[in-house]
């Protein structure tokens, strides 16, 4: 039996080419992902471990929990503590890292980042090492983190400007670059290293945020860490260099794991699609080889032997394809690391790691999916009766004509169930749960499509067939052919539907987000520029106490936009209108509305009318009732309140009446007050939180930009956001995400197209005789090719069409269930592109089968059978 199976495999090699390719691609994706992620992880680990393990003990201040449960910033170590550590017999050397936020100006003279980056100074003993150039020594030397260098374009040798605590400009020369790796604060905000004196004069900060220790000869890391911990006591977290390195490495590993999980998801989609293709191939092969199987039964093979023979066949195919897939995947991972690695980790040292896990996982998944997918066809093969060998018809003519009432009932039932689940997901408040519920609904609908597939194929072909039939004999024959074995066609098409649904779904979500943001930006009063202070400027105010409110530095309040900016802008003829939002948090005794800590955000708008320039989503009440003495309150704070209720606020306490309830969107937080009320509730702040600028229609965008930037020239720490740029960046971000996902799903789609091609090829084999008759009757080769082309295109279009419909419906449902106030977008261009791609894919899928059909000799085909 084994010999028969293997002989059969050798004889019919060609039939397995596309199946092999389908498995190969799936396995390739899995192994490629593993190799890529393993190598990335290795590289991450090596770079963080390498730098940390050179140090024997690392101490960092421990964040302290306050009485009321909030975490306080840790108290840095003092110079005296460092000296005591240096005096320890276990300690050979110890140095501290000072760290404080400081402002760095970019090439345009604006402060870098949303948050001020961190200035650091390090001693001899440190984890940080300069990648390129020299460490800073002189008072005007600086080493930038690679992140800052990339974003600002500053290179070694360039001159950069820092602002000291008095807001004076200080010039520095870049002497080197260093990598902060994955340390969250440093990599997010950006960092630079100064020499100690320079650090002191720029930031004035004292204390150490980290102390790195080297042990004396013969002292273990554990011993020195224990000694350090004894000296520093409760306020310190001490770990050995190895522990610290491992902790960083596991964080790095988690980073690589996220990438691994993401890629793996797409790899499994590809494998799933490959499974469908394999199933269909074996189902068709078994149907076509009924006679062969029956003959085996006639000469005495038992059912079990036939079953095992088919499974063995799938095992061999799966094994060969998986082995090739592992090879291809290793190559793919190698290429990925070579070109993609440096993007994720600039410090990447390219070594490819091929773990046994990757190889074994690839082999197991590949073989398992093949054998599993062949299981049902193999079972069907055992039902072939020995008598079938004696039948004259070589192939299963008129197979599976009945597509059954049960099928229709179950399918429609599943759709209804899916509709119910989606309705459930849409009924609640939008949140991430809604998304999962909709996803579950989509799964159910997909099963419904699988069940209804054969009926769908027939129905759709019936619909679009009428005009196609009139287009000529090739199209007519193609239409008839495509419904001959609806189940086969449905399975081939569904493989494509998977990819099409996912890609359309994502594209619909993306388009909706774009439309939503677009609408928000366009709003009733479109704003061109937004000016706001930099965030988190605490710690810039030089040495000493935290200011209670605002951050006074050199007499300037950095936490707001000075009023002068607004008045200057308002006077500029290039600018049509300027208005401001002020936002603060105040204490209130009214615990119906406050946060747990007794505070509540309050907002007001200057030079703007609520309902005109700023437009809240009114949930209840009337904006006309809003004015001095009344407030707008956000939905979630108004749970126990109704319009007309009064709340108390401020010190001395004042009462305000609730005029309307608004959604917590856009610029509305907590309570919105009239400007005069706000001044009384928050008397000490005179600056704006955000200034909105709208240019006059006559001003060009360059003029407007110039007007805005010249106004804020004096205030480098103000962030200026161009709404046009922001929209562009947002759209670009969505586009990049779309292309990345499309590329990942591309493989699943390619596999599905292989499946359709394979189905066509096997059908062509089955219809050799028919093709010969058609050719004898005068159908030209090109007409025959066109016939198969139209059939494949029809299949692809149905698959893609069903996917597009599912994707649009569930994409819309998912985003509506997840986010509120969403404008549903329809990516017409992309959907058209998908359908065009489907047509092209159909033509490509039909290429080889059609070539084969057209080349077959008529007399040969007529003589056989």
């Amino acid at each position, binding site marked *: 039996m084994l010999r028969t199976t293997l002989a059969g495999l050798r004889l019919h090699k060609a039939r397995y080419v596309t199946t092999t390719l389908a498995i190969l691609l799936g396995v390739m994706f899995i192994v490629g992902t593993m190799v890529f992620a393993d190598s990335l992880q290795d590289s991450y680990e090596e770079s963080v471990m390498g730098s940390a393990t050179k140090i024997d003990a690392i101490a960092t201040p421990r964040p302290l929990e306050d009485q009321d449960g909030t975490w306080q910033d840790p108290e840095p170590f003092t110079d005296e503590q460092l000296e005591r550590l240096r005096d320890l017999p276990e300690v050979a050397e110890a140095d501290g890292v000072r760290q404080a936020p400081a402002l760095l100006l970019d090439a345009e003279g604006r402060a870098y980042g949303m948050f001020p980056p961190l200035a650091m100074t390090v001693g001899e003993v440190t984890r940080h090492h300069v990648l390129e150039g020299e460490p800073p020594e002189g008072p005007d030397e600086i080493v930038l983190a690679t992140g800052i260098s990339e974003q600002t374009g500053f290179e070694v040798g360039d001159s950069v400007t820092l602002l000291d605590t008095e807001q004076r400009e200080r010039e520095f020369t870049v002497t080197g670059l260093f990598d902060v790796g994955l340390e969250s604060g440093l990599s997010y905000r950006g960092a630079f290293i100064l020499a100690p004196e320079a650090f002191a004069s720029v930031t004035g900060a004292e204390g150490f945020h980290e102390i790195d220790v080297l042990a004396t000869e013969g002292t273990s890391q554990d011993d020195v860490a224990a000694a350090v911990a004894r000296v520093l006591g409760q306020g310190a977290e001490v770990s050995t260099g190895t522990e610290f390195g491992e902790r960083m490495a596991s964080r790095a590993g988690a980073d690589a794991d996220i990438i691994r999980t993401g890629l793996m998801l797409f790899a499994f989609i590809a494998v799933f699609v490959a499974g469908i293709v394999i199933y269909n191939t074996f189902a068709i092969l078994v149907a076509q080889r009924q006679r062969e199987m029956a003959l085996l039964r006639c000469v005495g093979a038992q059912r079990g032997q036939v079953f095992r023979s088919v499974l063995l066949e799938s095992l061999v195919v799966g094994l060969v394809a998986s082995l090739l897939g592992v090879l291809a995947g290793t190559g793919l991972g190698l290429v990925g690391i070579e070109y993609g690695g440096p993007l994720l980790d600039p410090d990447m040292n390219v070594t490819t790691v091929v773990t046994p896990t990757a190889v074994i996982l690839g082999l197991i998944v590949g073989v398992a999916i093949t054998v599993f997918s062949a299981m049902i066809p193999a079972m069907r093969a055992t039902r072939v009766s020995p008598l079938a060998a004696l039948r*004259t018809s070589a192939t299963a*003519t*008129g197979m599976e004509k009945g597509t059954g009432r049960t099928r229709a009932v179950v399918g429609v039932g599943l759709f209804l169930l899916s509709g119910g689940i989606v309705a459930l997901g849409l009924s609640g408040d939008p949140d991430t749960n809604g998304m999962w519920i909709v996803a579950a609904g989509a799964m159910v609908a997909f099963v419904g499509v699988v069940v209804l597939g054969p009926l769908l194929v027939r129905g759709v072909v019936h619909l679009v067939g009428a005009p196609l039939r009139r287009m*000529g*004999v090739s199209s*007519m*024959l193609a239409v*008839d*052919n495509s*419904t*001959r074995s609806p189940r086969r066609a449905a399975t081939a098409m569904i493989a494509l539907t998977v990819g099409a649904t996912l890609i359309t779904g994502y594209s619909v979500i993306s388009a909706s987000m774009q439309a939503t943001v677009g609408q928000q930006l366009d709003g009733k009063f479109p704003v061109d520029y937004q000016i706001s202070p930099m965030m988190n400027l605490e710690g810039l105010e030089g040495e000493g106490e935290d200011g209670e409110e605002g951050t006074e530095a050199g007499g300037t309040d950095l936490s707001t936009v000075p009023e002068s900016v607004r008045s200057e802008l308002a006077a500029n003829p290039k600018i049509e209108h300027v208005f401001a939002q002020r936002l603060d948090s105040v204490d209130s005794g009214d615990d119906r509305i406050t946060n747990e800590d007794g505070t509540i955000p309050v907002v007001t708008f200057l030079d703007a009318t609520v309902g005109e320039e700023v437009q809240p989503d009114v949930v209840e009440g009337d904006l006309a009732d809003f004015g001095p003495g009344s407030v707008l309150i956000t939905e979630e704070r108004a749970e126990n309140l109704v319009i007309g209720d009064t709340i108390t606020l401020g010190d001395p306490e004042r009462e305000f009446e609730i005029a309307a309830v608004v959604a917590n969107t856009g610029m509305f937080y907590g309570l919105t007050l009239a400007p005069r009320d706000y001044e009384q509730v928050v008397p000490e702040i005179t600056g704006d939180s955000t200034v909105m600028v709208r240019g006059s229609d006559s001003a060009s965008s360059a003029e407007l930009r110039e007007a805005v930037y010249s106004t804020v020239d004096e205030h480098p720490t103000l962030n200026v956001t161009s709404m046009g740029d922001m929209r562009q960046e947002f759209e670009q971000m969505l586009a990049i995400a779309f292309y990345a996902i499309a590329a990942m799903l591309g493989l699943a789609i390619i596999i599905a197209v292989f499946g359709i091609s394979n189905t066509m090829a096997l059908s062509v084999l089955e219809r050799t*005789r*028919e093709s010969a*008759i*058609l*050719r*004898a*009757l*005068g*159908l*030209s*080769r090109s*007409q025959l090719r066109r016939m198969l082309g139209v059939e494949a295109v029809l299949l692809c279009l149905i698959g893609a069409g069903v996917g597009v419909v599912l994707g649009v419906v569930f994409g819309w449902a998912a985003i509506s269930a997840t986010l509120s106030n969403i404008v549903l977008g329809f990516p017409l261009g992309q959907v058209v592109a998908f359908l065009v791609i489907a047509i092209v894919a159909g033509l490509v899928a039909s290429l080889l089968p059609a070539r084969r059909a057209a080349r077959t*000799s*008529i*007399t040969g085909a*007529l*003589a056989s*059978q």
Partner: protein
Amino acid sequence: MSTPTPPSPSPFQAPPVVIAHDLTKTYDTGADQVHALAGVNVEFHRGAFTAIMGPSGSGKSTLMHCLAGLDTPTSGTVHLGRTQITGMRDKELTLLRRDRIGFIFQSFNLLPMLTAEQNILLPSQIAKRDIDQARFDHIVDVVGLRDRLTHLPAKLSGGQQQRVAVARALLNAPEVVYADEPTGNLDSRSGAEVLAFLRDSAQELNQTIVMVTHDPVAAAYADRVVFLRDGRLVDEVTSPTAELVSERLLKLEA
């Protein structure tokens, strides 16, 4: 019967429709060569119903395929009317088959997804020809398929299927109809019906028909029988009877 029946001319006075001259066909089977046709000269006249007979492997199917432009001979020429079809390219041959030749095969003659009517009209559709409705009705009535037109082949008996094939071949009044063992898969009664249709259409519609068969009874329906052996034309009988044909055949195989 909407078309008047033309007077039946003597098949031997009419000009030849198909002329094969010195036809050879050689297959290379690795080491040695097999001569399927070894110099065949034969003519088929308008309105004649000719049977080609011979033992298995005598080259009768190959001859038919070469005459019909389905296969290319190694040497020699075939003319259809004034057209030399040997040396034509595939595209021209396709058009030739489509417009000027009719075919009836042994089995699987019909496309399973098309109804009887669609099968009959298929060649016209391929050629984008207008359908002569009167001729269609006439032929459908002659072969007795009027009430079976909307059926799929799977719902038709073997005899009915072959009658559909005959109707398809005759509809366009091709210059010649080739029939390859048209009754090979039929019971004797259905076979007799189909053969009678072929004979009648040759006489009544002045249709040239060339039939390959190994059945002396089938051959007896023809006006003329030519015998092939080892790729050569070795004998010929006009106005054959089954007995006469069997006798000659036995002699050939001896």
